[in-house]
C-alpha cells in the first residue's frame, strides 16, 4: 500500500516523506520501543502514540521507514528532521492507535503476529 493511500484512510497528514512511495504490507502498534526493537520484519509500519526522538531512532535502527503518530500527538521539528535524514515517512493522524490499526487492518495491512 502506498503512503498516500494509508494517509487518506486515517485522515492523516504526511509531515515528511514521499506520498507516492511505499510497498507497505505489515504494521505493528506499540508505545513500548523495547518491543519494537525485537521485531525482525521489513516493510513494516509503526503505529504509536509515543511521540519523541527515541521513537524515530528506534525506527531507524529497526529499518522501519514509516511511522504513524496517533492521537494527534505533537511531532517536534527535531523528530521530523531526523526522519528526513533517514528517508522515513511520518504521518500524523487524529485517530487513536486502535482506530488507526483497525482501518489499516481492514484495508489489508497484515499484523506481524
Amino acid at each position, binding site marked *: 500500500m502506498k503512503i498516500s493511500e494509508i494517509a487518506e484512510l486515517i485522515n492523516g497528514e504526511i509531515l515528511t516523506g514521499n506520498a507516492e512511495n511505499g510497498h507497505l504490507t505489515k504494521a505493528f502498534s506499540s508505545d*513500548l520501543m*523495547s518491543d519494537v526493537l525485537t521485531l525482525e520484519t521489513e516493510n513494516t509500519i509503526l503505529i504509536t502514540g509515543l511521540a519523541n*526522538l*527515541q521513537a524515530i*531512532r*528506534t525506527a*531507524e*535502527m529497526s529499518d522501519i521507514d514509516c511511522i504513524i503518530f496517533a492521537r494527534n500527538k505533537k511531532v517536534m521539528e527535531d523528530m521530523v528532521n531526523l526522519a528526513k535524514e533517514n528517508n522515513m515517512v511520518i504521518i500524523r493522524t487524529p485517530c487513536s492507535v486502535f482506530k488507526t490499526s483497525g482501518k489499516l487492518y481492514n484495508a489489508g495491512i497484515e499484523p506481524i503476529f
Partner: protein
Amino acid sequence: MMEYEYNITGGDFSKAGFASSNLKKALKQLNIPSKLIKRIVIALYEAEMNIVAHAYEGVIKVEITPEKIYINVKDKGPGIEDIQQAMEDGYSTASEEVREMGFGAGMGLSNIKNNADDFEIVSTVNEGTELKIVTKIS
C-alpha cells in the same frame, strides 16, 4: 581493520542513539547485508540506551575486521548486582523518565544477547559494567 570510538554521557537522552546511527551509516558503506546491520545496530542501540539510562558515562569501541565486528561497551555507573536477574525479561531498575520514553521494560540485555553471536557481560557494583558483543560478518 576499521575502528570507531564514541563517548556517551549518562542522562543525555537527546543524543541517545547517535553512536548507533553513526555506525549504521558506516556499515552501510561497507556493503554489509542489511539484516546483519540491523542485528548489530539493534544490539548497540540497546547498549547505548543502557548507558544513557543507567550510567554516568561510557565508551563504545567498535572494531571491524573482514570476519567479525567487535563491540566493547564500558561504562562508569552503578553496576549490576545480579546479572542473571538483569538478563531476565521483565526485570528492570529503570527510572520513570526512561519508561515514559518507551524503554525500561527489562528487555534490553536479552535483546542484545539475541542479536549477537557472542555476548559477554561483566559488572562491578558501584564501578560499572562492560559488555562485549561480537557479530560474525560471513
